[in-house]
């Protein structure tokens, strides 16, 4: 994968970071190198394109709920939620109160496990295998609970579906979730320990200023790590977020360490949200009554753009219905797109090649939602 560029001085060459690099995920970055330094980087996406937007035009909303899991493997429940909200709006479903609480609890659990993967990936990218193993181990406790509730460890198969959720919480699920919280807290504290090796790899690396972040369209923890307080759960509340108390962590430094720290602080806020939701969890239905599993668009007409705060930032669905069984048009806005193309190209200018994995993983990207 290395080409010597003969026109330039000796020592200039191009090098690919990914897609076969163990720390790159399904993404590739072409780096123009001079010795050990990256002069210019060009993102090369497209390895995970599955054509969801077109596929969804050929499937009915309930089938699309199953498909929406796969937009991002690492946060499937949150994608379920955005999709379900778009259909709920178009079909004018009144979502039962209990279902709204369950949706929020699961979305937050999904956020926490995704943030653990972030820590795991940053550890892996910088050769800290212990961190990777511990984070993946603790994530597994969450997956066990997700399996208990949704029937799948990673893919919930549209558990959060149009009209509510597919099934009520099983017996003792609330207790199981509450039992998880001390484990999550242990892992969070472990990740936030001031490990000197960790600081050396991430502090003052890949610094993005507030102005640049806004200019490039950064969202989520990446934007909050640059000192901008922005969170869709707060700014444009959906489900029951306006009734819950939580803070939006922000850090001003804008470097890889700040972004990551914001992410780990968010875990604490998610824990608060889960505790409050379980405390207030009402009894009753979890699905719009009389809703058959086959949800059709027969009478829906109109369009909607709906956005949610996913683990990686603002993710959205734009959906148009024209009274057909299937949506007329679906457009998905993934949070990683801006992080992975303009921002990463900007940050990987004149840096050491050894810092590429550190900067790359600090962007908390998901190649799956870049390509969709």
């Amino acid at each position, binding site marked *: 994968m290395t080409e010597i560029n003969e026109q330039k001085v000796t020592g200039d060459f191009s090098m690919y970071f990914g897609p076969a690099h163990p720390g790159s995920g399904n993404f590739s970055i072409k780096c123009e190198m001079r010795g050990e330094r990256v002069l210019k980087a060009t993102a090369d996406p497209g390895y995970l394109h599955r054509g969801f937007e077109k596929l969804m035009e050929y*499937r009915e909303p*309930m*089938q699309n709920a*199953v*498909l929406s899991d796969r937009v991002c493997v690492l946060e499937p429940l949150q994608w379920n939620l955005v999709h379900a909200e778009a259909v709920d709006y178009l079909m004018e479903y009144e979502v039962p109160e209990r279902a709204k609480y369950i949706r929020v609890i699961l979305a937050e659990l999904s956020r926490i496990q995704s943030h653990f993967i972030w820590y795991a990936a940053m550890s892996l990218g910088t050769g800290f295998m212990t961190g990777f193993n511990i984070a993946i*181990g603790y994530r*597994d406790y969450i997956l*066990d609970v997700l*399996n*208990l*509730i*949704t*029937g*799948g460890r990673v*893919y919930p*198969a*549209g558990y959060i579906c149009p009209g509510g959720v*597919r*099934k009520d919480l*099983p017996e003792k699920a609330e207790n199981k979730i509450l039992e998880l919280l001390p484990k999550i807290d242990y892992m969070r504290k472990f990740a936030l320990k001031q490990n000197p090796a960790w600081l050396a790899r991430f502090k003052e690396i890949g610094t993005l200023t507030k102005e640049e972040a806004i200019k490039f369209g950064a969202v989520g923890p990446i934007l909050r790590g640059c000192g901008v307080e922005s969170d869709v759960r707060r700014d444009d509340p959906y489900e029951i977020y306006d009734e819950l108390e939580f803070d939006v962590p922000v850090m001003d430094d804008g470097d890889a360490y700040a972004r990551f720290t914001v992410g780990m602080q968010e875990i604490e806020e998610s824990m608060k949200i889960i505790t409050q939701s379980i405390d207030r969890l009402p009894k009753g239905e979890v699905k719009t009554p009389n809703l*058959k*599993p*086959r949800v059709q668009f027969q009478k829906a007409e109109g369009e909607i753009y709906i956005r949610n705060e996913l683990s990686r930032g603002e993710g959205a669905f734009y959906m148009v219905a024209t009274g057909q069984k299937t949506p007329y048009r679906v457009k998905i806005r993934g949070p990683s797109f801006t992080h992975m193309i303009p921002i990463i190209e900007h940050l990987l200018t004149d840096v050491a090649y050894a810092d590429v994995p550190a900067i790359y993983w600090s962007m908390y990207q998901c190649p799956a939602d870049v390509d969709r």
Partner: protein
Amino acid sequence: MKLGIVIEVVKNVFTKPMTVLFPFEKIEIPERNRGEHEFNIDTCISCGACARICPNLAIEMVEVPSELREKYPKTYPQVDLGKCCFCALCEDTCPKESIKLTTNFYFATFDKDDTILYPVKAE
């Protein structure tokens, strides 16, 4: 700092490991787990709802082998696990609870034909 590491090591020596010794030990699989299908031909009314909702077109309504056709004259769902995404929409939509996803997920195979679940096997 050093004492902290010692305490952590001692604690870890006495805590239960995160992993189990598979295949000698197995973790408990929750009842809702979406695994291999279980089909009850006697309660099935051949409505075809499962085949219509399947997002992956993994279900085909087929006739049973000729020697059983007298007993089961209609068409019944045949699932291709190779195409299935284990979403359990077929289970949710079945009016007679004839098709169910079980906790069994041990069905890795080298033979493509093993992935087909026939509604009923000839004797």
